[in-house]
Protein backbone atom coordinates (compact mmCIF):
# COMPACT_ATOMS: atom_id res chain seq x y z
CA UNK A 1 0.00 0.00 0.00
CA UNK A 2 1.40 3.40 -0.97
CA UNK A 3 1.83 6.12 1.67
CA UNK A 4 -0.88 8.78 1.60
CA UNK A 5 0.51 12.17 0.70
CA UNK A 6 0.45 15.09 3.13
CA UNK A 7 -1.87 17.04 0.82
CA UNK A 8 -4.31 14.11 0.58
CA UNK A 9 -4.43 13.81 4.38
CA UNK A 10 -5.11 17.54 4.69
CA UNK A 11 -7.90 17.36 2.11
CA UNK A 12 -9.55 14.35 3.72
CA UNK A 13 -9.38 15.93 7.19
CA UNK A 14 -10.84 19.21 5.98
CA UNK A 15 -13.67 17.56 4.04
CA UNK A 16 -14.59 15.41 7.04
CA UNK A 17 -16.24 18.38 8.79
CA UNK A 18 -17.31 20.65 5.91
CA UNK A 19 -19.97 22.61 7.81
CA UNK A 20 -17.67 23.42 10.73
CA UNK A 21 -14.84 24.43 8.42
CA UNK A 22 -17.21 26.50 6.28
CA UNK A 23 -18.23 28.51 9.36
CA UNK A 24 -14.56 29.21 10.13
CA UNK A 25 -13.94 30.22 6.51
CA UNK A 26 -16.95 32.55 6.57
CA UNK A 27 -15.86 34.17 9.86
CA UNK A 28 -12.38 34.81 8.51
CA UNK A 29 -13.81 36.05 5.21
CA UNK A 30 -16.02 38.50 7.14
CA UNK A 31 -13.07 39.80 9.18
CA UNK A 32 -10.82 40.20 6.13
CA UNK A 33 -13.65 41.66 4.04
CA UNK A 34 -14.53 44.30 6.63
CA UNK A 35 -10.90 45.27 7.24
CA UNK A 36 -10.10 45.55 3.54
CA UNK A 37 -13.35 47.41 2.81
CA UNK A 38 -12.66 49.97 5.56
CA UNK A 39 -9.10 50.49 4.30
CA UNK A 40 -10.23 50.73 0.67
CA UNK A 41 -13.00 53.20 1.43
CA UNK A 42 -10.66 55.41 3.44
CA UNK A 43 -7.78 55.33 0.97
CA UNK A 44 -10.01 55.67 -2.11
CA UNK A 45 -11.78 58.68 -0.63
CA UNK A 46 -8.48 60.28 0.40
CA UNK A 47 -7.10 59.76 -3.10
CA UNK A 48 -10.31 61.05 -4.67
CA UNK A 49 -10.19 64.14 -2.50
CA UNK A 50 -6.52 64.80 -3.33
CA UNK A 51 -7.29 64.50 -7.05
CA UNK A 52 -10.44 66.59 -6.75
CA UNK A 53 -8.74 69.39 -4.83
CA UNK A 54 -5.74 69.44 -7.13
CA UNK A 55 -8.13 69.92 -10.05
CA UNK A 56 -10.52 72.35 -8.38
CA UNK A 57 -8.39 75.13 -9.82
CA UNK A 58 -9.82 77.80 -7.54
CA UNK A 59 -8.24 78.95 -4.27
CA UNK A 60 -11.65 79.93 -2.88
CA UNK A 61 -15.28 79.48 -3.86
CA UNK A 62 -17.89 82.10 -2.96
CA UNK A 63 -21.53 81.03 -2.46
CA UNK A 64 -24.58 82.73 -0.93
CA UNK A 65 -24.27 83.26 2.82
CA UNK A 66 -24.83 80.09 4.86
CA UNK A 67 -24.87 77.74 1.87
CA UNK A 68 -21.30 76.43 1.93
CA UNK A 69 -22.55 73.01 3.13
CA UNK A 70 -24.78 72.74 0.06
CA UNK A 71 -21.83 73.37 -2.24
CA UNK A 72 -19.60 70.76 -0.57
CA UNK A 73 -22.53 68.32 -0.76
CA UNK A 74 -22.94 69.00 -4.50
CA UNK A 75 -19.24 68.69 -5.28
CA UNK A 76 -18.94 65.46 -3.30
CA UNK A 77 -22.14 63.71 -4.32
CA UNK A 78 -22.72 65.11 -7.79
CA UNK A 79 -26.25 66.08 -6.74
CA UNK A 80 -27.13 69.58 -7.84
CA UNK A 81 -27.42 72.24 -5.13
CA UNK A 82 -29.82 74.87 -6.33
CA UNK A 83 -28.95 78.21 -4.79
CA UNK A 84 -28.53 81.61 -6.35
CA UNK A 85 -27.18 85.09 -5.61
CA UNK A 86 -26.91 88.37 -7.44
CA UNK A 87 -24.40 88.52 -10.30
CA UNK A 88 -23.17 91.93 -9.11
CA UNK A 89 -21.42 90.20 -6.20
CA UNK A 90 -18.77 88.96 -8.63
CA UNK A 91 -17.74 92.57 -9.30
CA UNK A 92 -17.41 93.20 -5.57
CA UNK A 93 -15.15 90.14 -5.21
CA UNK A 94 -13.05 91.00 -8.28
CA UNK A 95 -12.51 94.53 -6.91
CA UNK A 96 -10.56 93.21 -3.88
CA UNK A 97 -6.82 93.88 -4.35
CA UNK A 98 -5.79 90.33 -3.41
CA UNK A 99 -8.04 88.67 -6.02
CA UNK A 100 -6.39 87.77 -9.34
CA UNK A 101 -9.27 86.23 -11.32
CA UNK A 102 -12.91 85.33 -10.88
CA UNK A 103 -15.28 83.18 -12.87
CA UNK A 104 -19.00 82.65 -12.30
CA UNK A 105 -20.97 79.41 -12.33
CA UNK A 106 -24.68 78.66 -12.23
CA UNK A 107 -26.03 75.33 -10.93
CA UNK A 108 -29.03 73.53 -12.39
CA UNK A 109 -30.51 70.05 -12.35
CA UNK A 110 -31.96 68.02 -15.20
CA UNK A 111 -35.51 66.75 -14.80
CA UNK A 112 -36.21 63.23 -13.56
CA UNK A 113 -38.45 60.96 -15.59
CA UNK A 114 -38.87 63.49 -18.39
CA UNK A 115 -38.54 62.74 -22.09
CA UNK A 116 -37.00 66.20 -22.63
CA UNK A 117 -33.83 65.23 -20.66
CA UNK A 118 -31.29 62.60 -21.76
CA UNK A 119 -30.34 61.75 -18.18
CA UNK A 120 -32.11 62.27 -14.88
CA UNK A 121 -31.11 64.50 -12.01
CA UNK A 122 -27.80 65.38 -13.59
CA UNK A 123 -25.85 68.23 -12.03
CA UNK A 124 -25.70 70.86 -14.80
CA UNK A 125 -23.05 73.51 -14.28
CA UNK A 126 -23.27 76.64 -16.35
CA UNK A 127 -19.83 78.24 -16.69
CA UNK A 128 -18.38 81.20 -18.54
CA UNK A 129 -15.89 79.84 -21.12
CA UNK A 130 -14.26 83.28 -21.54
CA UNK A 131 -13.28 83.74 -17.89
CA UNK A 132 -13.17 80.06 -16.84
CA UNK A 133 -10.00 78.72 -15.26
CA UNK A 134 -11.43 75.68 -13.45
CA UNK A 135 -13.15 73.51 -16.08
CA UNK A 136 -11.43 73.81 -19.46
CA UNK A 137 -7.85 73.24 -18.27
CA UNK A 138 -8.93 69.69 -17.35
CA UNK A 139 -10.38 68.72 -20.70
CA UNK A 140 -8.85 65.38 -21.70
CA UNK A 141 -7.88 66.99 -24.99
CA UNK A 142 -7.45 70.70 -24.55
CA UNK A 143 -9.08 72.00 -27.68
CA UNK A 144 -7.83 75.57 -27.51
CA UNK A 145 -11.10 77.04 -28.73
CA UNK A 146 -14.09 78.68 -27.08
CA UNK A 147 -17.12 76.41 -26.77
CA UNK A 148 -20.27 77.16 -28.70
CA UNK A 149 -23.66 77.64 -27.01
CA UNK A 150 -24.78 74.14 -27.89
CA UNK A 151 -21.58 72.35 -26.85
CA UNK A 152 -21.07 70.79 -23.45
CA UNK A 153 -18.24 69.22 -21.52
CA UNK A 154 -19.05 66.09 -19.49
CA UNK A 155 -17.46 64.66 -16.36
CA UNK A 156 -15.37 61.49 -16.60
CA UNK A 157 -18.20 59.21 -15.48
CA UNK A 158 -20.38 60.39 -18.36
CA UNK A 159 -17.63 60.26 -20.95
CA UNK A 160 -18.93 59.64 -24.45
CA UNK A 161 -17.39 60.34 -27.88
CA UNK A 162 -17.28 63.96 -28.98
CA UNK A 163 -20.34 64.87 -31.00
CA UNK A 164 -22.68 62.59 -29.00
CA UNK A 165 -26.03 64.40 -28.69
CA UNK A 166 -27.44 65.22 -25.26
CA UNK A 167 -30.79 66.79 -24.49
CA UNK A 168 -31.64 68.88 -21.44
CA UNK A 169 -34.94 70.75 -21.03
CA UNK A 170 -35.67 69.97 -24.67
CA UNK A 171 -32.54 71.74 -25.98
CA UNK A 172 -30.08 69.68 -27.98
CA UNK A 173 -26.40 69.85 -27.04
CA UNK A 174 -23.36 68.03 -28.39
CA UNK A 175 -20.53 66.69 -26.27
CA UNK A 176 -17.38 68.66 -27.09
CA UNK A 177 -15.10 66.80 -24.71
CA UNK A 178 -14.85 65.05 -21.36
CA UNK A 179 -12.91 65.93 -18.25
CA UNK A 180 -10.25 63.76 -16.70
CA UNK A 181 -11.52 61.76 -13.69
CA UNK A 182 -11.39 63.48 -10.29
CA UNK A 183 -13.21 60.91 -8.17
CA UNK A 184 -15.58 63.63 -6.95
CA UNK A 185 -19.24 64.21 -7.78
CA UNK A 186 -18.10 66.54 -10.56
CA UNK A 187 -17.32 63.43 -12.60
CA UNK A 188 -21.08 63.05 -12.95
CA UNK A 189 -21.73 66.67 -13.91
CA UNK A 190 -22.33 68.26 -17.29
CA UNK A 191 -20.71 71.65 -17.94
CA UNK A 192 -22.72 73.96 -20.18
CA UNK A 193 -21.53 77.36 -21.44
CA UNK A 194 -23.42 80.04 -19.51
CA UNK A 195 -25.04 81.47 -22.66
CA UNK A 196 -26.30 77.99 -23.58
CA UNK A 197 -27.70 77.50 -20.10
CA UNK A 198 -29.65 80.76 -20.24
CA UNK A 199 -30.86 79.91 -23.76
CA UNK A 200 -31.96 76.49 -22.53
CA UNK A 201 -33.95 78.18 -19.74
CA UNK A 202 -35.56 80.59 -22.22
CA UNK A 203 -36.62 77.79 -24.54
CA UNK A 204 -37.72 75.42 -21.75
CA UNK A 205 -41.20 76.93 -21.57
CA UNK A 206 -41.90 75.66 -25.09
CA UNK A 207 -39.65 72.60 -25.32
CA UNK A 208 -39.45 71.09 -21.84
CA UNK A 209 -42.05 69.30 -19.78
CA UNK A 210 -41.35 71.66 -16.91
CA UNK A 211 -40.11 75.21 -17.29
CA UNK A 212 -36.61 76.03 -16.06
CA UNK A 213 -36.71 79.37 -14.29
CA UNK A 214 -33.30 80.97 -14.50
CA UNK A 215 -32.78 84.70 -14.24
CA UNK A 216 -29.64 85.87 -16.14
CA UNK A 217 -28.88 88.27 -13.28
CA UNK A 218 -28.48 85.34 -10.86
CA UNK A 219 -25.45 83.08 -10.40
CA UNK A 220 -24.69 80.23 -7.98
CA UNK A 221 -20.99 80.55 -7.20
CA UNK A 222 -17.88 82.55 -7.95
CA UNK A 223 -14.59 80.69 -8.39
CA UNK A 224 -11.74 82.82 -7.06
CA UNK A 225 -8.05 82.72 -7.92
CA UNK A 226 -5.87 84.70 -5.50
CA UNK A 227 -2.75 86.66 -6.35
CA UNK A 228 0.52 85.11 -5.18
CA UNK A 229 1.45 86.32 -1.70
CA UNK A 230 4.53 88.14 -2.98
CA UNK A 231 2.42 90.13 -5.46
CA UNK A 232 -0.16 91.60 -3.13
CA UNK A 233 -2.01 88.35 -2.44
CA UNK A 234 -3.11 86.91 0.89
CA UNK A 235 -3.08 83.38 2.28
CA UNK A 236 -6.36 81.60 1.41
CA UNK A 237 -7.70 81.58 4.99
CA UNK A 238 -7.01 85.29 5.40
CA UNK A 239 -8.56 86.14 2.03
CA UNK A 240 -11.65 84.07 2.94
CA UNK A 241 -11.98 85.98 6.22
CA UNK A 242 -11.56 89.36 4.52
CA UNK A 243 -14.15 88.53 1.85
CA UNK A 244 -16.71 87.30 4.38
CA UNK A 245 -16.17 90.43 6.48
CA UNK A 246 -16.36 92.86 3.55
CA UNK A 247 -19.21 91.18 1.63
CA UNK A 248 -21.70 89.87 4.17
CA UNK A 249 -23.89 88.22 1.49
CA UNK A 250 -21.18 85.59 0.89
CA UNK A 251 -19.84 82.43 2.46
CA UNK A 252 -16.35 81.50 1.31
CA UNK A 253 -15.18 77.91 0.97
CA UNK A 254 -11.59 76.80 1.25
CA UNK A 255 -10.21 73.43 0.10
CA UNK A 256 -9.98 72.34 3.77
CA UNK A 257 -13.77 72.51 4.00
CA UNK A 258 -14.01 69.61 1.54
CA UNK A 259 -11.57 67.59 3.63
CA UNK A 260 -13.59 68.21 6.80
CA UNK A 261 -16.82 67.27 5.02
CA UNK A 262 -15.27 64.02 3.68
CA UNK A 263 -13.97 63.04 7.10
CA UNK A 264 -17.35 63.79 8.66
CA UNK A 265 -19.22 61.75 6.05
CA UNK A 266 -16.89 58.78 6.37
CA UNK A 267 -16.61 58.70 10.16
CA UNK A 268 -19.76 56.65 10.79
CA UNK A 269 -19.19 54.03 8.09
CA UNK A 270 -15.51 53.53 8.85
CA UNK A 271 -16.21 53.42 12.59
CA UNK A 272 -18.90 50.75 12.13
CA UNK A 273 -16.76 48.61 9.81
CA UNK A 274 -13.68 48.82 12.00
CA UNK A 275 -15.51 48.17 15.27
CA UNK A 276 -17.37 45.19 13.80
CA UNK A 277 -14.11 43.80 12.49
CA UNK A 278 -12.39 44.37 15.85
CA UNK A 279 -15.18 42.46 17.60
CA UNK A 280 -15.28 39.58 15.10
CA UNK A 281 -11.51 39.18 14.87
CA UNK A 282 -10.83 37.92 18.43
CA UNK A 283 -14.05 35.88 18.38
CA UNK A 284 -12.88 34.19 15.16
CA UNK A 285 -9.43 33.53 16.58
CA UNK A 286 -11.04 32.01 19.68
CA UNK A 287 -13.42 29.95 17.54
CA UNK A 288 -10.58 28.56 15.42
CA UNK A 289 -8.64 27.64 18.58
CA UNK A 290 -11.71 25.98 20.08
CA UNK A 291 -12.61 24.06 16.92
CA UNK A 292 -9.07 22.78 16.54
CA UNK A 293 -8.92 21.81 20.23
CA UNK A 294 -12.17 19.86 19.75
CA UNK A 295 -10.89 18.29 16.53
CA UNK A 296 -7.67 17.26 18.23
CA UNK A 297 -9.69 15.72 21.07
CA UNK A 298 -11.96 13.82 18.65
CA UNK A 299 -9.03 12.60 16.60
CA UNK A 300 -6.80 11.42 19.45
CA UNK A 301 -7.05 7.77 18.41
CA UNK A 302 -6.39 8.57 14.77
CA UNK A 303 -3.41 10.78 15.63
CA UNK A 304 -2.09 8.07 18.00
CA UNK A 305 -2.37 5.50 15.21
CA UNK A 306 -0.58 7.85 12.82
CA UNK A 307 2.25 8.23 15.36
CA UNK A 308 2.33 4.44 15.93
CA UNK A 309 2.64 3.95 12.15
CA UNK A 310 5.73 6.13 12.13
CA UNK A 311 4.50 9.68 11.75
CA UNK A 312 6.81 12.08 13.57
CA UNK A 313 5.68 14.78 16.03
CA UNK A 314 6.63 17.33 13.40
CA UNK A 315 4.35 15.63 10.86
CA UNK A 316 1.34 15.76 13.24
CA UNK A 317 2.09 19.40 14.07
CA UNK A 318 2.45 20.30 10.41
CA UNK A 319 -0.80 18.53 9.60
CA UNK A 320 -2.81 20.45 12.23
CA UNK A 321 -1.15 23.78 11.41
CA UNK A 322 -1.58 23.08 7.69
CA UNK A 323 -5.32 22.56 8.13
CA UNK A 324 -5.56 25.91 9.94
CA UNK A 325 -3.49 27.56 7.22
CA UNK A 326 -5.71 26.16 4.44
CA UNK A 327 -8.88 27.35 6.23
CA UNK A 328 -7.33 30.78 6.81
CA UNK A 329 -6.17 30.91 3.19
CA UNK A 330 -9.60 30.09 1.77
CA UNK A 331 -11.27 32.53 4.18
CA UNK A 332 -8.81 35.27 3.22
CA UNK A 333 -9.29 34.65 -0.50
CA UNK A 334 -13.08 34.69 -0.10
CA UNK A 335 -12.95 37.88 2.00
CA UNK A 336 -10.66 39.64 -0.47
CA UNK A 337 -12.68 38.55 -3.50
CA UNK A 338 -15.91 39.62 -1.81
CA UNK A 339 -14.71 43.03 -0.65
CA UNK A 340 -12.88 43.87 -3.89
CA UNK A 341 -15.78 42.65 -6.03
CA UNK A 342 -18.39 44.56 -4.04
CA UNK A 343 -16.20 47.66 -3.92
CA UNK A 344 -15.66 47.55 -7.69
CA UNK A 345 -19.35 47.05 -8.37
CA UNK A 346 -20.87 49.42 -5.87
CA UNK A 347 -18.17 52.11 -5.52
CA UNK A 348 -20.20 54.67 -7.49
CA UNK A 349 -23.30 54.00 -5.42
CA UNK A 350 -21.21 54.11 -2.23
CA UNK A 351 -19.57 57.40 -3.24
CA UNK A 352 -22.95 58.88 -3.99
CA UNK A 353 -24.64 57.72 -0.81
CA UNK A 354 -21.69 58.54 1.49
CA UNK A 355 -21.07 61.80 -0.38
CA UNK A 356 -17.36 61.26 -0.63
CA UNK A 357 -15.00 61.32 -3.60
CA UNK A 358 -13.70 57.93 -4.71
CA UNK A 359 -10.68 57.05 -6.78
CA UNK A 360 -8.89 53.67 -6.71
CA UNK A 361 -5.61 53.92 -4.80
CA UNK A 362 -2.43 53.31 -6.82
CA UNK A 363 -1.21 49.71 -7.27
CA UNK A 364 1.58 49.87 -4.70
CA UNK A 365 -0.79 51.19 -2.02
CA UNK A 366 -3.36 48.50 -2.88
CA UNK A 367 -0.68 45.82 -2.69
CA UNK A 368 0.34 47.06 0.78
CA UNK A 369 -3.27 46.97 2.04
CA UNK A 370 -3.94 43.52 0.60
CA UNK A 371 -0.66 41.97 1.78
CA UNK A 372 -1.23 43.31 5.30
CA UNK A 373 -4.75 41.84 5.38
CA UNK A 374 -3.53 38.48 4.01
CA UNK A 375 -0.67 38.28 6.53
CA UNK A 376 -2.92 39.16 9.47
CA UNK A 377 -5.58 36.61 8.48
CA UNK A 378 -3.10 33.80 7.89
CA UNK A 379 -1.33 34.56 11.16
CA UNK A 380 -4.68 34.58 12.99
CA UNK A 381 -5.50 31.13 11.61
CA UNK A 382 -2.14 29.57 12.38
CA UNK A 383 -1.62 31.15 15.83
CA UNK A 384 -5.15 30.20 16.95
CA UNK A 385 -4.50 26.55 16.08
CA UNK A 386 -1.00 26.56 17.55
CA UNK A 387 -1.82 25.26 21.04
CA UNK A 388 -4.01 22.32 19.87
CA UNK A 389 -1.39 21.48 17.21
CA UNK A 390 1.45 21.44 19.78
CA UNK A 391 -0.63 19.39 22.26
CA UNK A 392 -1.57 16.84 19.57
CA UNK A 393 2.01 16.44 18.43
CA UNK A 394 3.20 15.86 22.03
CA UNK A 395 0.80 12.99 22.75
CA UNK A 396 2.35 9.56 23.22
CA UNK A 397 0.93 7.10 20.62
CA UNK A 398 -0.17 4.45 23.13
CA UNK A 399 -1.86 6.91 25.47
CA UNK A 400 -3.56 8.68 22.54
CA UNK A 401 -4.97 5.40 21.15
CA UNK A 402 -6.15 4.24 24.60
CA UNK A 403 -7.78 7.58 25.50
CA UNK A 404 -9.38 7.85 22.11
CA UNK A 405 -11.17 4.51 22.44
Amino acid at each position, binding site marked *: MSRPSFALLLRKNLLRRPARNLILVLCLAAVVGMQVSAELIERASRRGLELGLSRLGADLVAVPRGLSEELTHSFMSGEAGLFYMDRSLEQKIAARPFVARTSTQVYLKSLAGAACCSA*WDVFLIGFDPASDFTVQPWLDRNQGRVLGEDEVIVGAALAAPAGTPLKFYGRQFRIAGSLAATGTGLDRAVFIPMAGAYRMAEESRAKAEKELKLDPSRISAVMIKLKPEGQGGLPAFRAAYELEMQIPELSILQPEDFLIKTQKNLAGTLGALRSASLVIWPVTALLIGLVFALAAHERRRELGLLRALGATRGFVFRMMAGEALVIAGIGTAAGLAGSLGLFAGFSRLLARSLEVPFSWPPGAEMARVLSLAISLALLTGVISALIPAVQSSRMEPYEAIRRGE
Partner: protein
Amino acid sequence: MTAMKARSAGAVILLLGLLLLLTPWLIFPVCGVGRNAAGVSRALGHHGCHGTLWAETAIGSATIIIGLLPLIWPKPRVLRPAAWASAGCALLAVLFPLFITGMCNFPTMPCRLATLPAIETVAAFQVISASFILLAFRKTS
Protein backbone atom coordinates in the same frame (compact mmCIF):
# COMPACT_ATOMS: atom_id res chain seq x y z
CA MET B 1 -29.51 13.15 5.63
CA THR B 2 -28.93 13.39 1.86
CA ALA B 3 -32.56 14.41 1.37
CA MET B 4 -32.21 17.19 3.93
CA LYS B 5 -29.02 18.43 2.28
CA ALA B 6 -30.68 18.33 -1.13
CA ARG B 7 -33.66 20.29 0.22
CA SER B 8 -31.32 22.89 1.76
CA ALA B 9 -29.45 23.22 -1.53
CA GLY B 10 -32.77 23.62 -3.36
CA ALA B 11 -33.78 26.31 -0.86
CA VAL B 12 -30.55 28.19 -1.56
CA ILE B 13 -31.21 28.11 -5.33
CA LEU B 14 -34.80 29.23 -4.72
CA LEU B 15 -33.70 32.12 -2.48
CA LEU B 16 -31.17 33.34 -5.03
CA GLY B 17 -33.84 33.16 -7.73
CA LEU B 18 -36.13 35.22 -5.52
CA LEU B 19 -33.35 37.79 -5.05
CA LEU B 20 -32.80 37.92 -8.80
CA LEU B 21 -36.51 38.45 -9.33
CA LEU B 22 -36.87 41.13 -6.64
CA THR B 23 -33.68 43.08 -7.39
CA PRO B 24 -34.85 45.04 -10.47
CA TRP B 25 -38.36 45.54 -9.07
CA LEU B 26 -37.82 46.26 -5.39
CA ILE B 27 -34.31 45.98 -3.93
CA PHE B 28 -32.42 48.09 -6.48
CA PRO B 29 -35.17 49.01 -8.96
CA VAL B 30 -34.36 49.88 -12.56
CA CYS B 31 -35.24 53.33 -13.94
CA GLY B 32 -38.93 54.11 -13.94
CA VAL B 33 -39.85 51.39 -11.42
CA GLY B 34 -40.61 51.57 -7.69
CA ARG B 35 -38.78 54.36 -5.90
CA ASN B 36 -37.14 55.36 -9.21
CA ALA B 37 -40.49 56.07 -10.81
CA ALA B 38 -40.29 59.80 -9.95
CA GLY B 39 -42.41 60.94 -12.84
CA VAL B 40 -42.67 64.39 -14.29
CA SER B 41 -43.94 62.90 -17.49
CA ARG B 42 -45.94 59.98 -18.74
CA ALA B 43 -44.65 60.63 -22.25
CA LEU B 44 -41.24 59.15 -21.52
CA GLY B 45 -41.93 55.62 -22.73
CA HIS B 46 -39.57 52.84 -21.71
CA HIS B 47 -35.98 53.22 -20.62
CA GLY B 48 -33.12 51.22 -22.06
CA CYS B 49 -33.16 49.00 -18.99
CA HIS B 50 -36.83 48.06 -19.35
CA GLY B 51 -36.05 44.94 -21.40
CA THR B 52 -33.59 43.84 -18.74
CA LEU B 53 -36.30 44.19 -16.10
CA TRP B 54 -38.45 41.60 -17.86
CA ALA B 55 -35.50 39.38 -18.72
CA GLU B 56 -34.43 39.27 -15.06
CA THR B 57 -38.03 38.63 -14.05
CA ALA B 58 -38.15 35.61 -16.35
CA ILE B 59 -34.71 34.33 -15.31
CA GLY B 60 -35.52 34.84 -11.61
CA SER B 61 -38.82 32.97 -12.00
CA ALA B 62 -37.08 30.14 -13.84
CA THR B 63 -34.47 29.91 -11.05
CA ILE B 64 -37.23 29.74 -8.44
CA ILE B 65 -38.85 26.83 -10.30
CA ILE B 66 -35.44 25.14 -10.60
CA GLY B 67 -34.96 25.56 -6.83
CA LEU B 68 -38.41 24.07 -6.17
CA LEU B 69 -37.56 20.80 -7.93
CA PRO B 70 -35.05 19.50 -5.31
CA LEU B 71 -37.43 20.67 -2.57
CA ILE B 72 -40.13 18.41 -4.01
CA TRP B 73 -37.81 15.57 -5.12
CA PRO B 74 -34.78 15.79 -2.79
CA LYS B 75 -32.56 13.46 -4.80
CA PRO B 76 -29.04 14.01 -6.09
CA ARG B 77 -30.13 13.11 -9.63
CA VAL B 78 -32.55 16.06 -9.50
CA LEU B 79 -30.22 18.40 -7.64
CA ARG B 80 -27.23 18.08 -9.95
CA PRO B 81 -29.08 19.20 -13.10
CA ALA B 82 -30.78 21.89 -11.01
CA ALA B 83 -27.36 23.23 -9.98
CA TRP B 84 -26.21 23.26 -13.62
CA ALA B 85 -29.42 25.02 -14.66
CA SER B 86 -29.05 27.56 -11.85
CA ALA B 87 -25.48 28.34 -13.02
CA GLY B 88 -26.81 28.72 -16.57
CA CYS B 89 -29.49 31.13 -15.35
CA ALA B 90 -26.79 33.14 -13.55
CA LEU B 91 -24.88 33.43 -16.79
CA LEU B 92 -28.00 34.59 -18.63
CA ALA B 93 -28.79 37.03 -15.81
CA VAL B 94 -25.46 38.77 -16.48
CA LEU B 95 -25.49 38.43 -20.28
CA PHE B 96 -28.89 40.10 -20.70
CA PRO B 97 -28.05 43.49 -19.10
CA LEU B 98 -24.52 43.52 -20.51
CA PHE B 99 -25.07 42.43 -24.10
CA ILE B 100 -28.61 41.50 -25.03
CA THR B 101 -31.25 43.85 -23.60
CA GLY B 102 -28.78 46.39 -22.15
CA MET B 103 -29.13 49.18 -19.61
CA CYS B 104 -29.51 52.97 -19.83
CA ASN B 105 -26.55 54.76 -21.39
CA PHE B 106 -25.66 57.07 -18.53
CA PRO B 107 -23.71 55.70 -15.55
CA THR B 108 -25.62 58.05 -13.25
CA MET B 109 -28.91 56.28 -13.96
CA PRO B 110 -30.20 54.06 -11.12
CA CYS B 111 -30.03 50.90 -13.25
CA ARG B 112 -26.30 51.33 -13.93
CA LEU B 113 -25.51 52.64 -10.47
CA ALA B 114 -27.16 49.90 -8.42
CA THR B 115 -29.25 47.34 -10.35
CA LEU B 116 -26.45 46.03 -12.56
CA PRO B 117 -23.88 45.46 -9.78
CA ALA B 118 -26.61 43.90 -7.63
CA ILE B 119 -27.58 41.47 -10.42
CA GLU B 120 -23.90 40.63 -10.96
CA THR B 121 -23.49 39.95 -7.22
CA VAL B 122 -26.52 37.64 -7.07
CA ALA B 123 -25.32 35.84 -10.22
CA ALA B 124 -21.87 35.37 -8.68
CA PHE B 125 -23.48 33.83 -5.59
CA GLN B 126 -25.57 31.58 -7.84
CA VAL B 127 -22.46 30.28 -9.62
CA ILE B 128 -20.63 29.78 -6.29
CA SER B 129 -23.57 27.94 -4.72
CA ALA B 130 -24.03 25.76 -7.84
CA SER B 131 -20.33 24.85 -7.73
CA PHE B 132 -20.63 23.90 -4.05
CA ILE B 133 -23.70 21.80 -4.73
CA LEU B 134 -22.04 19.98 -7.63
CA LEU B 135 -18.96 19.38 -5.49
CA ALA B 136 -20.92 18.18 -2.47
CA PHE B 137 -23.13 15.81 -4.46
CA ARG B 138 -20.41 14.47 -6.72
CA LYS B 139 -19.95 11.17 -4.90
CA THR B 140 -23.57 10.38 -4.22
CA SER B 141 -24.59 10.68 -7.86
